[in-house]
Structures are given as structure tokens and as C-alpha cells.
């Protein structure tokens, strides 16, 4: 890095990177907070709120996000256009069915700073429902970020030996 010329070092420092996040089986809030940090540029030591140093973030598999708890039925997204009688409330499940990228988009929008740069940062967020990405975005990607949540294995994914080796905490009652 120290062998770069001054202009090359400047270019490398202020270049915009493209990050990839796989949202399969991940909580959308954690994904959104990772996105918002990188869109603002807060992951860089040269951060300043006035200098436009955010990066691009590409999120794939937004259709397969996983809310914890009962949020699919209990979390409500409300909207009002201002006209009388147009107050709409949708549960997270209904919202997701209508538009699979809306949950993450709204989450990131709420986490960004509430100023005029927010819209520019949202334009740098690219959401895709599945893992099929267009060519031009694939060419731009520089780094994949690790997933925030470790995906637990299903019971069917454990081998019989692992199941037998698991300590027995109590003997289940079986009717004779």
C-alpha cells in the first residue's frame, strides 16, 4: 500500500466498494443494520457525515428472511396517504407476500439518518428476492459479508450417530 503513488492511494481510499449480503434465514433487522452502517460509510476511519463515502450494498435472497418470534403475524406496517379512509395496516406476512423486498427496504430506510442524503443512500442499496443477480451487479461486487446469524441445523440434517451421541436429559414416556 505504501508503494502506491499519491493519486493511486487517494483513488483507493475514496473508491466506492460493492458489498454482498446473503439474507437467507437471517433476521431482517440485523441485515438492515449492517446495510445502513455500510451505506453511510461508518465502517471507514475516514468517515464524515458531509462527505459522501458510503458504499453500495447488494442483498440477495430477501424472500427467505427469518423473523424471530411471532413477528410475521404480530409486526404491523402502517401507512396513510393523507386522504380520508386510506389508513392501511399490513402484517409482516402480508407485506412480504405483496413485495418480498419491502421489509428490508423499510428497515434500512428507518435506520439511515433522517436527512437529504438518505435517498441517495437508498439508491445505493440493491435488493434481490433470490440469488439470481444481474450481470452488471455481479461484475461490480468486491466483498461478501459474513452472515450475522448462524443458521441452526434441522433435525433431519443431523446424522444418526450425532443424535445417539446427544445426552439424554429425560426418558420420554412411551405407552406400553
Amino acid at each position: 500500500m505504501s508503494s502506491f503513488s499519491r493519486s493511486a492511494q487517494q483513488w483507493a481510499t475514496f473508491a466506492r466498494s460493492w458489498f454482498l449480503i446473503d439474507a437467507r434465514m437471517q433476521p431482517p433487522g440485523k441485515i438492515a443494520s449492517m446495510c445502513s452502517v455500510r451505506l453511510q460509510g461508518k465502517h471507514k476511519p475516514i468517515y464524515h457525515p458531509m462527505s459522501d463515502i458510503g458504499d453500495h450494498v447488494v442483498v440477495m435472497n430477501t424472500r427467505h428472511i427469518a423473523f424471530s418470534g411471532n413477528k410475521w403475524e404480530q409486526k404491523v406496517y402502517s401507512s396513510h396517504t393523507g386522504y380520508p379512509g386510506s389508513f392501511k395496516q399490513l402484517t409482516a406476512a402480508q407485506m412480504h407476500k405483496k413485495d418480498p423486498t419491502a421489509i428490508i427496504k423499510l428497515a434500512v430506510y428507518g435506520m439511515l439518518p433522517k436527512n437529504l442524503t438518505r435517498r441517495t443512500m437508498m439508491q445505493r442499496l440493491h435488493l434481490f428476492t433470490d440469488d439470481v443477480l444481474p450481470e452488471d451487479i455481479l461484475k461490480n461486487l468486491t466483498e461478501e459479508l459474513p452472515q450475522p446469524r448462524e443458521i441452526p441445523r434441522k433435525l433431519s440434517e443431523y446424522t444418526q450417530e450425532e443424535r445417539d451421541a446427544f445426552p439424554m436429559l429425560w426418558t420420554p414416556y412411551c405407552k406400553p
Partner: protein
Amino acid sequence: MTRMWRHVAGVSALLCSKSGFTGSVIMVFLTLSRWIRNRGPDRYWKVQELLKSARHFRGRKNRCYSLAVRAVRRAFVYASKARKTKRHSMRQLWIQRIAAASREQHMKYPALIHNLLKCSVQLNRRALCDLCISEPRSFKALAALACARRTEGFRAALGDGSHPPGVFSRITQPITAQHG
């Protein structure tokens, strides 16, 4: 002379009637030329001194004295209040930058600061911010030092008594947990 006296008396009567004071008053100005008031001789320069602070304002505030006086006073008040907020916002920016740099080194900002304090590294946030931008390897070394100090208890209890590589300290014996 008598003509001047009469003139003066007439004028004084007029003035007294206007102000509502009805008494016999003799005004001091004996000739017409002495009615001319001579105020401060340097008004032009005083006005210019104020307007020079207002030249970059928008609208008539940068030209007209009465409007400029109010605008300049507000500007100076804002400048005074901002001196304190400048210090506050500079510190906030340093903390954000140090947090970003320490997350690059797999540490969090509170852990870094607390452990550097425990190692009695008395670098303030301004110095740490300058280091993390212009001396990244020095900052990496500081982060390693803080990480080593942070895990000292764990290593004493669970480790094999060896020191982490690359971290200099005054401890020369192997680390053992000192429990009673």
C-alpha cells in the same frame, strides 16, 4: 440684537408649546448657526467596520446598516454558542472514526478505550483518530495491545501461561491466575 432676542424668544415659545412645557425658558443657542448639531466625526468608519462583518450575507443585510446591525449581532451570538458545540462535535467525530477503525481490527470502541486505559496508554481520542487514519499499522498494534490486555484474565485462567506474540509488556513471568 433685540431682533435676535425676539427671534429666540419666539422659537423657544414654539418649542415649549410643542413639548407641553409652558414656562419662560431662555434657550442657550444664541445664533442660528449654533443650532447645527455636531455629532461624532467618525460615523462612516464605525458603520464600515460593522458592514465588513456582513458583506457575505444575503439580501439587504449586507448593505443597509439598520438591517445589518441585527444580522451581525445574531451571527456573533451563533458563533459564540458554536465554539462549545464545535468541541463537542469534533469529539463525536473522533469517536465515530476510532470505532470504525477498531471494528476493522475486530474490536469494539468501548473495549478498546477501556483496555488502553488499563494499560495506561494516555492517547486521547484526537491522537487515536489521527493514528487510525494516517498510521494504520500503529493503530493495529494498539488494538492488539488492548486485545491482549482484555483477554489477560482468560489466558491466565484457561491458557498455558504463554504471552501473545508481538505484545510487549512488563510482565516477565508466565501468567498464572492468582486465586487464594
